[in-house]
Structure formats: C-alpha cells, structure tokens
C-alpha cells in the first residue's frame, strides 16, 4: 500500500490553506460542491463501483416486486391481444386513451435524460456531470415503454411490421403522410441515438470498471469497454462524437414530442387541433421529465449511497429548473386555453365548462394544483429545493399533475366530438390499469438493474470536472472557480 500513496497526486489531494479561517471556507466550498471536493480517481471509482456490486436484500426485493409488475404487464398484454381490444374501457367515441396517455407520458419522461446530458453539455453546465447517466438510463427505458405503447394499443398487434418501411410480400409500404409514421421515425431516431449516446459516454467508465471488477463482471466489462485505453486520440474522437450527438439529439428531442403533439394536432378533434400543441407538448415533456429525474436521483442516491455525488447543489439546481419549466408550461397552457375561450367556440366551451364545473373538474383542479400552485408556492424557496424529501414530493406531484393533464387531453377531450350524440366518457378497466402499473414497474426495474450493471455515475466526467475546478481567493473570501479548458 505504500506504493499506492505515490499515485495520490496533489491534483486530487489539494492541501488546505494554512489560515484556519480560509481553511474553513475551503472546507465549506468542498462540502457544497462535488467538483470542488476532489478525491483520487481510484476513490471516486470505488464510491461508484463498490455499492453497485453489492446486491443487498432491498435490491432483490425490488427486483422481485418490479419483475412481478413487468410480468403482469406482459401477461395482461397477451390476454388483451388474444381477447381483443374490447377488454379495455375504450369505446366507439374514445378510441384512444390509456395507452396513448402512457405513450405521451413516457415520451415526456424520456425527454429529460437527453436534455440534461446533451443540452447541458452543450451549454457547459458542469454540475450536470453526476446526474446525466441516471437521466439517460431513464430516457432509454421510458422510450422503450413508449415505443411499446402504440403496439399494445393496436387492434392487430401481430401485424405491427406492416408499419415498418421494409420490402415485403404485400408490396406496400407505410404511408409517410401518417403522423404515426412520423412518430415511429422520430422515436426510432431518438431511442437509437439515445442508446448510442449513453453507450459512448459510458466507454471510459466501462474501462475503469473492467480494471476494478472480477469474475463475470470483469468479462462483461471487458467486452463492453471494447479495449478502451484512454489514448489521447480516443479521447479526442470521443469528445467530437459526443459533441455531434449533443447537437444532433437536441433537435431530435424537440421533434419527437412535437410529432407526438402532432398526432393530436393533425386531427379535427376539438381540443386537439391546436397549433401551439407542438411546443406546448415539448415543454410539458421536459417538465414531467425533469420531475422524474429528480425522483430517480433521490432513489438512486439512497439505494446506491451516492451522497458524495448527489448533493444539495444538484437538487437545488434541478428544483430551479423545475420551477422555470413550470412557468413556461403555464405560459403555453394559458395560450392554448385563452384563445378558444375568447373565441367562444361552442364545442370547446363545452370542454372548458366540463373542466371548470363538470365531472372533470376534480381532475382539472388537481392538475392545476399539482402543476402550478405547489411548484410556484414552494420552489422559490432554496430551503425546499435543497430538501430532498420536499423536492421529491413536489416532483411526484408534478408527475401526477402531468399524467392528469395527458388524461384530460387524450381521454376526456376525445370524448367530445362535434356531434353531441356521440359524446362519451372513458372509464379505465382492469387490463389497462394493470398494464399501466406494469410499465411503471418495468421502467423502475430497468433503471434498477441497469444501475447495478453499469456505473450509474459518469466517473470520468466527475473526475474531469474535479480536475478543472478549483477555488479562487478574492480578498479574504474563497470562491469556487472553473477552468475553461476548451
């Protein structure tokens, strides 16, 4: 072990100032900021890889429960496919609802991961480093689920490949006019590029894990790391590729949810055919997505003992983010509401009446409470933002609120077509409830298992950040400072 001490270079073991007062300040800065709190890479890696490999009782319990939910999902789906879509609560007026609500919701969740990784990378927000991979893994599983939702929803799911442009015996391809085709192209692009993006960013960490692990994990990481050594050429190419992905995936992300919004906006359904639906859905997606990332962060922090990486500063920043998104979302929602309200378009007036005083009022007010009142009332306070339980509480409320919002748009508005003879109300039945609960379980299972298989904190990004961050003394005060290396 004496040999090892030599590796602990001064970069990672920065001495405290002699002055006791300044030393206290530095200690405070280090406590607050992960990137100031530099530790030797070996130690950082150990903080990630250690808990990851220790599969405790809680993990197995979660695995069994979430695996059970996933199985419920698949079994219910098989039942529904064999019996027919009639087992759901859908009817001749409301032909879309449960699965499309889930579809929109999960696509929305999938937005935050890439947003945090790519957009914040482009903007050089270094604090995002420890969050990005957890967010990306959420993206991947949420998108996977979102991709299955239109399939679950199909009347003849065994013919799903008819929607794929591939030469076939039918001699017919899908119609590119259909928003469903746009959807599939956009989601496929987004999902595949998200997976590649996540994998690229993971390569150096997999190389670290390869060196540290043993047994089957060693073999797994050896294969996954592809012989990454960290040569200067590899690093440069990785940086370029990641930049291309970051710039590329941001417009794709916007397009995905815009296209999802167009699924609705392209129709003649009152309450759907609104031109603001695209940006409104994108913001809604980010809103619920950032909320979901906050929840995942809190859970992973607890489960994998990531207190070192995920600090108050991160929750604080995410809280601010949530608040800003809430403002933006309200702005769009108000737009979508105000204009038809002002026009007094009859059928939309019916919908508004329904929301404000009809049977849907409890849902609508809950949604407004969860999406507006609570975030606005609480998130301005640093205290709330920094308190993990409080912030998670708000984030959970936002999830509830955004789910209800999708429910109101998809299931309620659809029940009010222009000919009042056909109005209808959607009441969920057991199959779609089981499937919905099941897919939540599946996403949780995916993130849980993945967080035990790959380093869920990007070690190299944290270490790089720590390398580039230091303190600066101005007068008698110590401040965190950042080196702009690029």
């Amino acid at each position, binding site marked *: 072990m004496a040999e090892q001490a030599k590796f602990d270079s001064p970069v990672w073991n920065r001495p405290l100032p002699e002055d006791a007062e300044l030393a206290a300040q530095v200690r405070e800065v280090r406590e607050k900021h992960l990137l100031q709190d530099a530790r030797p890479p070996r130690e950082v890696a150990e903080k990630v890889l250690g808990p990851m490999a220790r599969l405790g009782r809680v993990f197995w319990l979660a695995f069994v429960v979430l695996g059970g939910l996933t199985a419920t999902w698949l079994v219910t789906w098989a039942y529904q496919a064999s*019996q*027919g*879509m*009639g087992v759901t*609560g*859908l*009817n*001749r*007026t*409301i*032909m*879309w609802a449960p699965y499309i609500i889930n579809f929109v919701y999960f696509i929305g969740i999938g937005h935050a991961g890439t947003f945090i990784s790519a957009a914040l990378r482009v903007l050089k927000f270094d604090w995002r480093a420890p969050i990005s991979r957890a967010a990306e893994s959420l993206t991947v599983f949420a998108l996977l689920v979102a991709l299955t939702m*239109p399939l679950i*929803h*199909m*009347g*003849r*799911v065994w*013919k*799903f490949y*008819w*929607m794929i442009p591939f030469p076939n015996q*039918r001699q*017919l391809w*899908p*119609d590119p*006019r*259909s*928003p*469903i*085709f746009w959807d*599939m192209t956009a989601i496929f692009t987004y999902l595949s590029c998200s997976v590649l993006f996540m994998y690229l960013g993971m390569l150096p960490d997999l190389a670290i894990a390869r060196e540290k692990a043993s047994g089957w994990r060693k073999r797994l990481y050896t294969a996954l790391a592809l012989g990454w050594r960290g040569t200067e050429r590899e690093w440069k190419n990785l940086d370029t590729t990641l930049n291309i992905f970051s710039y590329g995936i941001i417009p794709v992300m916007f397009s995905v949810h815009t296209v999802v919004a167009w*699924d609705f906006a*392209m*129709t*003649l*359904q009152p309450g759907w055919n609104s031109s603001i639906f695209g940006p409104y859905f994108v913001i809604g997606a980010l809103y619920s997505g950032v909320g979901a990332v906050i929840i995942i962060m809190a859970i992973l922090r607890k489960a994998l003992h990531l207190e070192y990486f995920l600090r108050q500063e991160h929750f604080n920043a995410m809280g601010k983010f949530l608040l800003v998104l809430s403002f933006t979302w309200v702005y769009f929602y108000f737009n979508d509401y105000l204009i038809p309200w002002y026009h007094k378009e009859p059928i939309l007036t019916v919908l508004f009446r329904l929301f404000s005083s009809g049977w849907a009022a409890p849902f609508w007010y809950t949604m407004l409470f969860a999406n507006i009142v609570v975030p606005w009332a609480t998130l301005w306070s640093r205290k709330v933002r920094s308190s993990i339980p409080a912030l998670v509480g708000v984030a959970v409320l936002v999830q509830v609120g955004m789910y209800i919002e999708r429910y109101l748009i998809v299931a309620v508005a*659809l029940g009010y*077509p*222009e*000919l*009042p*003879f*056909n109005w*209808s109300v959607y009441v969920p039945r057991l199959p779609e409830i089981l499937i919905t609960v099941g897919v939540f379980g599946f996403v949780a299972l995916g993130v849980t298992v993945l967080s035990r298989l790959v380093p869920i904190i990007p070690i190299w990004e944290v270490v790089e950040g720590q390398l580039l961050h230091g303190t600066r003394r101005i007068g008698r005060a110590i401040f965190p400072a950042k080196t702009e290396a690029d």
Partner: protein
Amino acid sequence: MSELETRLLDRGQSAAAAPKTELPSHKWTMLIDLDKCTGCNACVVACHVENNVPIRSEREVIRGHGQHWIRIERYWEGEGDTQRATFLPMLCQQCSNAPCEPVCPVYASVHSERENLNLQVYNRCVGTRFCGNNCPYRARSFNWFAPQFEGPITEMLNPDVTVRSGGVMEKCTFCVQRIRRSEEDALVEGRPLREGDVTPACAQTCPTSAIVFGDRSYPESQVARRLGGQREFQVLEHLGTAPNVYYLKAGGSDGGAG
C-alpha cells in the same frame, strides 16, 4: 391476366371484352332528405344484413361498442315542453378530403379518385384507430372483439363482403360490392352504368325514399337534379371535409323530384 379480365372471365366473357381504356369515373353521391326520414331504422338493419356488420351483445353496447355503419342520431330541439326530437341518419360521409385517410400509416384508408369513394381495406388495417378518432362524424366502427355469428346465422352472410376480424376498423362503403357488381353487369352487357343501376342497401329499403343515391357527374341523375337547393347542407361543412353525403333540411320540399 388483369383483374378486370379475370372478373370478366368469371362471368363468361372472354378477356377480349375488357375495355382497353380506363373504367369510367363516377361521383357517387348520397342525398338524405331529412324531411322524409322517419327514424324507422330499416336502413340500419338492411345495412347490417347486406354488409355482415355484427350485432353486438347488450354488454358490449353498454360499454359503447355498438357497431353500426349507419345510425339514426336522435337530437332534441327546443326548450321545455316544446322539445321535439329530430333524426339525423349518420353514416360515413365519403369525404373528398377525408381526415381519416392521411393519418392511416398502412394505407388501409385510401381514396378512390375514380369513384369518389373513401375505401377501407380491411386486410391492410392493423387497428391503430387513428382514422376513427379523426372522423368528426364518428362514422367508423371498430371491431373491439372478433365478430360472433351463432350457428346457422353464418349462412346468411353476404359472400360479397368480407367479415372483418377483431381489431379491424370498418365503415360504410356505399355498398361498394353492389357498385362493383353493377359495373360488371354493365361491362358484360357492353353499356355504360345507368341511373338506378346501383342502389345501396339503405337507399333501397328506405320506405319514404329519404335516401337517394346516384352519380352526381351524370346530370340527369336524381341526386344531380336535386342538389343545389335551399335546403341542402352538409354535416360539419365548416371542417372542410367535403362530404359526398348531402342532407336536405326538414320542413320543406323540392317538389315532385322525390
């Protein structure tokens, strides 16, 4: 062998009888005179029988899975004690700018320019139900379950019409099988289609002749002659779907034409 030649051969015509040019185009149009509609439902039953539309059980109807290609929408007009019901037969409007068509990812809902028809190709349908949502008339019905025809009831199924499997969208076709049959008959006899050759099941049975069907592009047809009057309107005209089903408002007459 071309499709047309095969069809002619089946009717005992040698392939040489097939016209070398394109088949003539039509503007199939339906006219529903609300002044004459009595809500008797004869059209509904006739349609069920002609087009093998399954009857759904009570439980299914309660769940909103009732399946009809044409239905009589009954509205109430007026207030309080003077409230009076009105009937509006609603079926696929065979829109020229059909909102259901472009949203279908698999070309199951397509347009026939030649015949001015909105076609539904059951065997292509994968059941996304996008078309159903996008139909402002809610004229499309989905097979929530596979249809059930009990015992000998299968014998009365019309062999000209496919029985749609579960998970497939269906809708009024203007009895395209009858159009096809009449077209063939005309071809075999070497004459153009005449007014009255094609009548969908609903128009045929309608006791009051409230439903009239014909080719709008033929100026002597009943529909062409009766179009353009004061009473004419189209349902949800403002949406720009350009339906090919025209309605005549109740409470007036166009005198002698009907």
